């Protein structure tokens, strides 16, 4: 078994004239939380879509768990779970019905799917709201259901695309705790964000991405020490130093 669970080599994707992803390579180790940090439009979502088999790269290669995305997308899909940036849920249906449906589509039997739905709702702290329509949930609760849905296929590698955008601190903490717990149970995670503090707190390694290019890669401490003593520098300053711009611009 190799140390690397995901290997992405020289990924490229253009949308018309826009080079959304322009030669990105990185690896994700087993049981690692790997962060992709970059402003809006940097190319984070496009990278996740290519890694998760829903968007074909113009060039480059991806291997996940030793399986090639290009040649064995079915095999790869069995290993991954995706929590998309959008709330990819059916608002009219209950949290439980949403999860059961996604679980069954991923191949679980009816009983298995119900059990897994209860487990995952428990994990994100929403078991008591299982029967309520998702439409009635707060933004943060919807985000938690969105995450729970990604866990229904019991993935080895979880893609989390900005899972904390615009939510309350309670839901955010819940999501952080869930991610850390999943990692401790053996899961690898790709986490994208444009919040420095999140990347700093969760990730063992961070790739800084801007205009579709990976402009720096390392542990939070390594990134910071490039410009000064790690405990005095913020990732905000790292980004400013790398690009001459503020991350939030």
């Amino acid at each position, binding site marked *: 078994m190799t140390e690397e669970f995901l290997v992405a080599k020289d990924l490229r994707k253009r*949308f018309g004239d826009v080079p959304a992803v322009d030669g990105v390579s990185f690896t994700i180790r087993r049981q690692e939380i790997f962060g992709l940090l970059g402003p809006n439009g940097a190319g984070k979502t496009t990278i996740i*879509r290519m890694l*998760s*088999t*829903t*968007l*074909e790269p113009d060039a480059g290669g991806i291997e996940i768990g030793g399986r090639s995305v290009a040649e064995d997308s*079915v095999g790869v*899909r*069995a290993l*991954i779970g*995706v929590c*998309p*940036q*959008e*709330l*990819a*849920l*059916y608002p*009219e*249906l209950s949290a439980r*019905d949403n999860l059961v*449906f*996604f679980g*069954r*589509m*991923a*191949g679980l039997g009816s009983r298995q799917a119900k059990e897994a739905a209860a487990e995952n709702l428990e994990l994100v702290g929403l078991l008591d709201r299982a029967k309520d*329509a998702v439409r009635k949930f707060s933004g943060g609760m919807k985000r938690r259901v969105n995450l729970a*849905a990604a866990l*229904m*296929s019991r993935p080895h590698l979880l893609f989390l695309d900005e899972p904390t955008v615009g939510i309350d601190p309670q839901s955010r903490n819940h999501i952080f705790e869930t991610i850390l717990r999943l990692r401790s149970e053996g899961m690898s995670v790709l986490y994208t964000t444009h919040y420095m503090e999140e990347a700093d707190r969760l990730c063992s390694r961070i790739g800084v991405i801007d205009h579709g290019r990976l402009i720096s890669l390392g542990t939070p401490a390594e990134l910071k020490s490039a410009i000064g003593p790690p405990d005095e520098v913020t990732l905000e300053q790292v980004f400013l130093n790398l690009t001459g711009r503020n991350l939030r611009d």
Partner: protein
Amino acid sequence: MLVLRQTLLIAAKDTKVFLKDPFGVAFALLFPLMFILGFSLALRNIAPEDEQLAITVATREQEGLSHRIINLLTEDELLGAVVMPYDAAVRAVEEEEIGGFVAFPADFTSGLTEGRPTKLEVVARAGDPELEAALMGFARSVASSSSNTRIALAAIAQIAGPAALPRDAASFGRGGSLLSFETEQVGPVEAFNAANFTVPGYLTMYVFFAAAMGARAIMRERVNYTLERLMSNGARRESVVAGKYLGALYLGAIQLAVLWGAGLLAFGIHLGVSPAAVIVVSALMVLTSAAFGVMLASLVHTEASASSAAVLASLLLAPIGGCWWPLFITPEWMQSLAKLTPHGWANTAFNKLMLFGAEGGDVLVEMAALAAFGLAFLVVALVRFRLSPGGP
């Protein structure tokens, strides 16, 4: 197996989602019922007074079946047929007193009883297409395997006893009837119950409308990435297309059950001599409309464009296809235009079956045309459908 399982799961989920949307349910089921009720009442009030065309009939036989049939027809108050001697009827047409008439030939009785083909004669003044169409429709309904044919059979039996019936009485009314009629055009024999026209008309319109609006729901799933989530979850593209299609079929089946049920129970419609054929035509309309919805979703890029295309198509095709007024009262160019729409074929078939007494065999062309539309829509949908924006 995998595709079938996923297809069924998606269709079941879609039905669940649909039933939780009160507006969607109202739109697919209550709207058409409201229109049917409104227009049936409106038409009921005008039809008997001034809309009815008087049908003149004549016979060249001295005695025999035609007299018996004419008696039955003229006794029927609603039909309001008028009988005239043949020569007087010809003169009346020449002097423009009447627009035309239908005549039984001199060999009518002997032809029928001896199993020889015989022809009805339609005499019509040029320049009154509406009456001409009415006469042709009338003649056809007598000639075809209609309730009128059964009148004829009953008349034969009454006069001469069952032994006098043609050798194969059962085949009497079928496509190759002994009694034929020269023109294929179907015209209006008065629709006694306006609901016999409005129910299938609005059923056709709303089956199509609801299915077309299904495109919006599919777009919403593409835009909010649930389709993409399904894909990364292991769902096949074909499962999604088939699941969406099957879900739309479930909805259409619910519409058929409710609208035909209401038509029969509340509006007293009559499905004609071949109720099964009426159901088959409506089922084909569901199959074709559902295919249109999935095709639409495979062609547009946003939820809003799916929505406006669905509304536009539905509101445009309904009148062109004869959902709002009967096609047979429209000019010929409009009847030709109607052939470009699935609605036109469905309504023509419904009118033939429910108003003019046609049998299943008489609407095979319409059925085939509907199926062809559906097949074409499905092919486009299968080729063009994408699960994610810009993706496979």
